[in-house]
């Protein structure tokens, strides 16, 4: 039987995707700002964050209304409750893009400490993870969601590589590099946190589709792999 409720659920899904698209752009713009040390690019990310915050509020309100008015059960219930959690993760990701933009503002006006290597790789990875996790959400693709979770260790490794290089090669050898090294160190951490949020979303998608809890058990997924 066709249900009017399905149209409402499709609208909710659409909002999550649109919000996800804005978050993806915020991250691209923040790192673009870093590559070019561009103040306008960084400021754009900070301004755009308002639209993302509004999406989060709108999605939360829709979810509350649907819970109260439609009394969802089973897949419908899992979809709506996970949509609430996903919008929270997306909003945090956007906040991290703002954090990156603020680091760019700190760095602007002076030459970069060193050519960027691992940070662009980490950016590429985080973008791919977001794109895939949104795709997994649309297609309810558990295998793709799992692949996102498995990539989280790569993000950790890249962040560690950035940290140890900056600490061992610059900060510990010459403390005057600290003002230019610390923002880079933080950016690597922000990007890695973005990947963590993509991982959270992937876990929520698996719960949504299969009603299986994989949170805090990612080692099991790795073993399966």
């Amino acid at each position, binding site marked *: *039987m*066709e*249900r*009017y409720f399905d149209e409402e659920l499709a609208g909710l899904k659409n909002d999550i995707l649109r919000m996800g698209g804005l978050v993806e752009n915020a991250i691209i713009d923040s790192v673009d700002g870093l590559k070019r040390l561009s103040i306008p690019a960084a400021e754009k990310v900070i301004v755009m964050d308002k639209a993302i915050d509004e999406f989060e509020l709108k999605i939360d309100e829709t979810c*509350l*209304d649907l819970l*109260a*008015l*439609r*009394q969802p059960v089973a897949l419908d219930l899992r979809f709506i409750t996970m949509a609430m959690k996903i919008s929270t993760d997306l909003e945090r990701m956007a906040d991290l893009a703002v954090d990156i933009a603020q680091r760019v503002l700190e760095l602007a006006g002076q030459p970069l400490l060193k050519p960027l290597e691992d940070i662009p790789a980490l950016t590429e990875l985080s973008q791919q993870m977001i794109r895939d996790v949104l795709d997994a959400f649309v297609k309810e693709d558990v295998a793709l969601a799992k692949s996102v979770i498995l990539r989280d260790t790569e993000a950790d490794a890249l962040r560690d590589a950035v940290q140890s290089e900056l600490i061992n090669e610059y900060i510990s050898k010459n403390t005057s590099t600290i003002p230019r090294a610390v923002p880079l160190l933080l950016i690597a951490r922000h990007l890695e946190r973005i990947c963590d949020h993509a991982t959270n979303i992937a876990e929520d998608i698996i719960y949504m589709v299969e009603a299986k809890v994989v949170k805090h058990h990612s080692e099991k997924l790795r073993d399966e792999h």
Partner: protein
Amino acid sequence: MDKQIRMKAENVDFYYGKTHALKKINMDIYANQVTAIIGPSGCGKSTFIRLLNRMNELIPHSIFSGRVFLDCNNIFSPVVDPVEIRRRIGMVFQKPNPFPKSIFENIAYGLQVNGIKDKSFIEHKVVESLKKAALWAEVEKRLHASALALSGGQQQRLCIARALAVEPEVILFDEPCASLDPISTAKIEELILELKKSYTIVIVTHNMQQAARVSDYTAFFLLGELIEFDKTQNIFTAPKDKRTEAYITGRFG
């Protein structure tokens, strides 16, 4: 609330003998929206919906005061014909009440009573009404079978088709799913959501979840008073009155 108002109750009081069943009710009913009326037994909700097409006049020893408008016309004005009002404002009851006649005749009857004799027009209307009531596919091959052979849910959709045949503007539903199973209930609810595109709908229901699912506006009645009227969304997520909150969360009494 910038929606167009289709019906309006103004200072409506109603007594059954000495019992004051409705107390100064003021309420708007918006066009092409579903308005649900909820409240505990005896709160006046059925009394109120029956006033909306002058069914209360059939109750002995009752006293009514106030005004009820359909668009700009007071339906209780002495110059208004109650039969015409009940054509424009149809009603579907709690228990499906088809006539002990064929499916076809059940729908044709209302048209014939309204003086329509053109056979091909009547046939056209029967088919159209059954389609609008989402019953056509199930009965098209047995239009001349007895309506009493249909299931409860089908009988209820037949009653809806019968109401639609005379081209009403407003449809009143008084507990339309009270005697139906969950699947038949879901079908009626989907039908109500479809019908609101063309009609204005008022539904009285004991089932709060049903009010939440199908309505755009909800009115909460208690002891003959209209306690709260708002968008359904607001009533079920953040009601303003403590009594509404207590009732919808099941903390009542």
